[in-house]
């Protein structure tokens, strides 16, 4: 029983990471109808840059974990701008779906390869800012960092939501999501809003990277599968629903830790991907998404 509960707790922590990345997919999909297939690589870069700042691999540590977070978020934002500028904007201009899918994938490959060359191919350990000493909840061991992950993930999603709902800039984002052309006619610089949404999306992913890094190994290959599974989460929850991302994340996170423990760690990626295929076959708009009516 304790083991099950413990697995559920780590599943929740992992699920919240998925939720944050999925949330990032939703941000760019809302404004531009495009996704960054390299979202996982944004996370990976965030984690590795964070590691360089707080770890000793590049002559550090330069600062402590908490000070590093804003810098990593800033870096993530810039990285998102680069992705949007090189890979997405030209594709939107020529209205080529194939174009942005391929070019964001190409960017992801480049980022991964560059990271391999800078940080090496092996996984590194990320120094934990809190003690690794677990405490007990209902008899199950919980690491303090897991709590930080859950709180941090919820906080950043809440912050972005508040920004979108309350600030005038956020309203521009929402307006662009609803109708890009109409927003453009109302004087909103929609291409700037799209760039901004990419910055926001990569920044949240980078933040998720430094959150998850102390719990797992950090390395150039950590992003790809996280990115793919977070996409599954975004689909399961629905690409238009923030709550869907959280619920989807939790379902997947828990399913994965349970499979990893009770079946085999080799298979732990499988349930999420199977779930993705099932949801797409049965309700493509996701559990919480609205079905779009096609106009002729």
């Amino acid at each position, binding site marked *: 029983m304790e083991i099950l509960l413990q697995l559920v707790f780590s599943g929740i922590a992992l699920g919240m990471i998925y939720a944050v990345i999925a949330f990032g997919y939703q941000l760019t999909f809302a404004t531009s109808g*495009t*996704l960054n*297939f390299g979202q996982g690589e944004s996370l990976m870069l965030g984690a590795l840059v964070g590691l360089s700042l707080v770890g000793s691999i590049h002559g550090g540590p330069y600062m402590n974990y908490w000070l590093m977070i804003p810098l990593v978020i800033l870096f993530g934002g810039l990285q998102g701008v680069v992705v949007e500028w*090189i*890979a997405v904007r*030209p*594709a939107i201009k020529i209205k*080529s*779906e*194939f*174009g942005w*899918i*391929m*070019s964001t*994938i*190409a*960017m*992801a*490959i*480049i980022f*991964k*390869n*560059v990271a*391999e*060359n800078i940080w090496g191919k092996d996984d590194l350990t990320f120094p934990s800012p809190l003690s690794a000493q677990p405490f007990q909840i209902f008899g199950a061991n919980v690491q303090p960092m897991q709590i930080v992950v859950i709180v941090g993930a919820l906080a950043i999603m809440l912050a972005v939501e508040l920004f979108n709902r309350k600030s005038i800039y956020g309203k521009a984002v929402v307006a662009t999501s609803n109708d890009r052309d109409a927003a453009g006619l109302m004087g909103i610089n929609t291409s700037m809003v799209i760039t901004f949404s990419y910055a926001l999306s990569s920044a949240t992913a980078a933040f998720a990277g430094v959150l998850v890094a102390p719990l797992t190994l950090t390395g150039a290959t950590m992003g*790809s*599968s996280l990115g*793919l599974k977070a*996409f*599954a989460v975004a*689909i399961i929850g629905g690409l238009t629903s923030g709550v869907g991302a959280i619920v989807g994340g939790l379902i997947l996170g828990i399913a994965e830790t349970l499979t990893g423990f009770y079946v*085999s760690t*080799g*298979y732990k*990626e*499988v349930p999420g*991907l*199977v779930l*993705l*295929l*099932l949801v*797409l*076959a049965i309700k*493509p708009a996701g559990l919480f998404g609205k079905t779009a*009516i*096609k*106009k*002729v």
Partner: protein
Amino acid sequence: MNKKTLALSVIGIAALGLFPVFMHNPYYLHLAETILIYAILLFGLDIVVGYTGQVSLGHAGLFGIGSYTTGVLYLKLGLPILLALPASIVVAAVFGAVMALPALRVTGPYLAMVTLAFGTITQILINEMSFLTEGPMGIQITKPGWFGQKMDETTFFYLVAVLMVVALIVVHRILRSHLGRAFQALRDSPIASDCMGVSVYRYKVYAFVISAALAGLAGSLYAYSEQYISPNTYNFELTILFLLAVIMGGRKSRIGSLIGAFIVVMLPSLLADIDLFRQISTAAAVIAVIGAVIALVQKRKTAREIVVPVVATIGMALFSYKLENITDWRLTIFGLMTLFVVYYLQDGIVGFVSAMFGKGPRHLIAQSGAQAVDESLAIANAGGERVGVLLSARQLLMQFGGLKALNHVDLQIAQGTVHGLIGPNGSGKSTMMNVLTGIYKPTDGVVEFAGRVISGTTPSAIALGGVARTFQNVQLFGEMTATENVLVGLHSTFRSNVFDAMLHTPRYLREERAARERAASILHFVGLSDLANEEARNLPYGKQRLLEIGRALGLNPQLLLLDEPAAGLTAPDIKELIAIIRKIREHGITIILIEHHMDVVMSLCDTVTVLDFGQKICEGKPAAVQADPKVIEAYLGGSVSEELSGAAHPVATA
């Protein structure tokens, strides 16, 4: 086949045949073999990517399934190649169908992710199912047997070469047949394909299955060629490599696939040699600068457009001199190439070269006008002047959220008449069209056509049942010629299956000839004979509308729905259109006409129904309807008494 293609094929086959005679180095022989194997897979991938326009990130997985089917059958059962090869094809094809099934309901980025998930699962399963696949250890395979002894490298090369040529011919034939046209049609306009009786779902699955079968064949050959397979080969990078090859060589082209295969196989060897890479990137930078200067002088491009590629190539050249070890940066270079191809070489090398020589994409040329066009072929008579109700809609309700776009509407269409459907913008006319053709499923109510209930069935089933339509915003298959557009309409006249198309059986040849004759006569009927070989997207707007009508006639409809056919047409075009509609009616085809040009409606229609806010407000002879006060009010507004009930309805989109 014309003389040039024939000559090219002879040279190509001769080159393949002579290659091992002059090339004894087993390393190069093996490379050439790999190129041919990749080409087989790329032919298949091109069907999905180039023709149906979907992104598949699962082809490395299918390739792996092909390899492992052969590997496992060899290892566990010791089956010979004659059984293992077909088994690989079948198993991969089955998995292709499995991959396409969830993909039925999704497109674009969703489909890309589904296929990516599929590829990832495949790799995990191969890795984990050690009892079958030996897991990460991989499987050793020996070259297949041949008259009691093992094949040597040269014999196997010939086997691969023969299979590649066979695959090329088969794929080429399929893509030139009605199946290939269906694939292209669903890329250009899925909705129009459905309404031409070409089920988008079914043909998407066909495309995936054929594509997967080729991947299976390639995978099996690859296993024999490498003599060792392991799960790591079939990873995400291989998928991207395949996609890069297809777009770099050129979509919708077999030569493009061959060029693409050549490039991606040679790429690692090129990148292994740093000096060669430096020379190539320097040359590329020089070419880019010269090209940019020429483009600037000729004012074909602005400075802004060329700054990115020029800076990128120069940067790459400088970078190459700083590098010491290139293999570490292989993937970065590979990513940069992908970006370059996606934005600056969209039509691939084949497209680029043919654009330089001023040739568009090649299409099968329709028969010349020399042969007498039999116009009676154009329309099969839909039956005489039987008086009766052809289509009846009862109490149709179509609700979008709280909005009732159609509010309990009854509609009876008498056989052999032209029935006008008019009303102000947002009155529900187009919604009615979409309900009748099955694009929307009505919230409530029944549509009966020729005595059968059709509401609730699929658009393609309704189309095949004899209801054809045109679209308010023209939905032609842009990259196909006028003739090919009509041929898609004639899709239902084909009984041939994929094997008929592959083998060019007499049945297929007969049907293709008949369809082409009919297409020519239909084009003559709508006055487009001289534009038969023009791509639809290049036709003037008025001609596009006529072509849509022609395409719809291909279905042999009993009922033809025309959605604002005169919109945007010039006065002489409208005259021509009226004459054509009259001719169609004379053949006994019943027509429903949505139109805003009142002169067109008044001169053509036998009966007119007026919709307003989703309700039928009037029906009758054109003159009577025109004089009805309720109709005048709906169009011009006015009378106070009705304003209350009018304002209560929100306005629907047209």
